[in-house]
């Protein structure tokens, strides 16, 4: 099944709906490519142009990796991983050949909405995710409706009904499913990190992000003359937002 342009627009909207709560915290080097990719795919949809050639898609993939490295210094971990999945979803829009490509993007969307809960578990974000799940499910309907005989309203209704019907089972499992105290394995370094701090080793540029955060990772009142001697070392590392009143003490 060839993916026609008019069917790509809802998918593009879907990815943006998924990503909306992330936009406030994504670094500019990630937001910029996302904006460019969005405009580009809109252009392709509007002008019925062909999807970019394979070599161009490879170049785009490299640009994405570079953007990730420039922003996070790595592609692994919770934040860079989320950003990467998001950008790859946008890239996939340029390579839609069969239905399974679209389904993959929708599944990644389901996964990405879950990552919002790392940052907030407020009722608002829960309600938002619920709505996005209904929208993503309506996309599943778009791509299994082979004669394109359903309209947006019908699909949203069907989708909402199905998601609502899923709630009883969710409640049962939510109550009965055993919880494990502590992590499944001892690995998730990022479970409580992803904020700021000083590691055991000092590598140049490692602490660059710390001073971007408003709430300090480490604050200490430095007392006495001896402490003052340490100042240049800490200042070079850039890890500690030194405040004048601390030093004055």
């Amino acid at each position, binding site marked *: 099944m060839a993916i026609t342009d008019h069917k790509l627009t809802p998918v593009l909207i879907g990815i943006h709906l998924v990503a909306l709560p992330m936009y406030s915290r994504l670094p500019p080097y990630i937001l910029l490519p996302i904006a460019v990719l969005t405009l580009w795919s809109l252009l392709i949809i509007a002008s019925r142009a062909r999807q970019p050639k394979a070599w161009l898609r490879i170049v785009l993939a490299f640009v994405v990796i570079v953007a990730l490295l420039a922003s996070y210094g790595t592609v692994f971990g919770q934040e860079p991983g989320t950003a990467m999945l998001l950008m790859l979803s946008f890239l996939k829009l340029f390579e839609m050949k069969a239905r399974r490509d679209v389904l993959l993007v929708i599944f990644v969307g389901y996964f990405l909405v879950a990552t919002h809960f790392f940052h907030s578990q407020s009722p608002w974000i829960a309600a938002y995710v619920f709505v996005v*799940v209904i929208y993503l499910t309506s996309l599943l309907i778009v791509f299994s409706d082979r004669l394109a005989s359903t309209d947006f309203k019908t699909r949203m209704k069907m989708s909402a009904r199905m998601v609502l019907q899923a709630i009883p089972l969710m409640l049962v499992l939510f109550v009965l499913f055993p919880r494990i105290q502590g*992590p499944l394995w001892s690995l998730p370094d990022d479970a409580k990190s992803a904020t700021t701090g000083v590691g055991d080793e000092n590598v140049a540029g490692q602490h660059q992000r710390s001073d971007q955060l408003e709430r300090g990772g480490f604050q200490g009142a430095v007392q006495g003359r001896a402490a003052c001697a340490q100042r240049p070392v800490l200042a070079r590392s850039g890890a500690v937002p030194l405040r004048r009143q601390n030093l004055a003490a």
Partner: protein
Amino acid sequence: MSFISSARAFFQWPDFTRKPVFKFIAKRTGPFNGTVTLDRSRVYILPTRAGLVFLLLLLLLLVGSLNYNKSLGFVLTFILLGLGNVILFATWKNLAGLRLRAGGSLPVFAGEKAGFAVQLENPGAHTRYSIAVGHQGREYEVVDVHGEAVALAHFQVDAARRGILQAGRFRLSTEFPAGLFVAWTWIDLSMQSLVYPRPALSAEIPVSTSGEAGDQPMQGAGMEEYAGLRKYQPGDSWRRVAWKVVARTDELVIRQYHGGQPQLQWIDWQALAMSGSEACLSAMTRLVIDAEAAGRNYGLRLPGVEIEPAYGRTHYGRCLKALALYGDN
């Protein structure tokens, strides 16, 4: 889809139902006469490859929720699990409960494809979307069946040999509403089509023929004299319809000619005297087609069968049917 297609191949294995162990399958898939309702025992369902990927996604989400101990992560995971469950039932219900009846089929010549129609009746109120009909591993048509309505789904079967062609088992399947599951059924509605012999490329009537044909003075179409119009009667050749008059008066009339009788021709098995009965039937089929096209009066003689000379669609069909079924009792 490899799993599904292997399952498909499994169910299409021709000898499958002859083995006593699998008689229960035969009982479910037919052949049936009349209306068949797709009930529990006839609708199968399995996840598609996308469905398996969805399951993998659920596992990932579960592990993530457990690992980071996020309550809302669990909520989302279980909602999606519930959604998968709802979709499973929705896909199944999209097919189950349909009522099937055989539709018609038109006769074809051997070597062509025989078209069959299945009537899908939806007794429920909701539309059943995107139901595909397939035969021999090929998909032919996708239809929507609206609530309390009937839709026709068509498929084709290669008509290799003359005679009666059994449509055999066909497949109805649907992935609606999510593409995560595929529900399908195999049904044989004992549909048949008449297959005429494959016409020979060309065939000649031997010059000297039996009695009557020789007595008839040879008359070309150009020798006939226009004699007037009369009302169309079933069996008249469409070639003689006076379309200009029909367009003017809205009455179906045909032109009549003096010189009266159209040329008479016996298409005779004996006279052809060809080696091989199939080749002979092919040649006779060609002669019947040509004679009908030329608007001649023609009769058919097969061993044990004789059809009096006449012309028109009904006669044409009768002759071809006799040729198609020759030798079958």
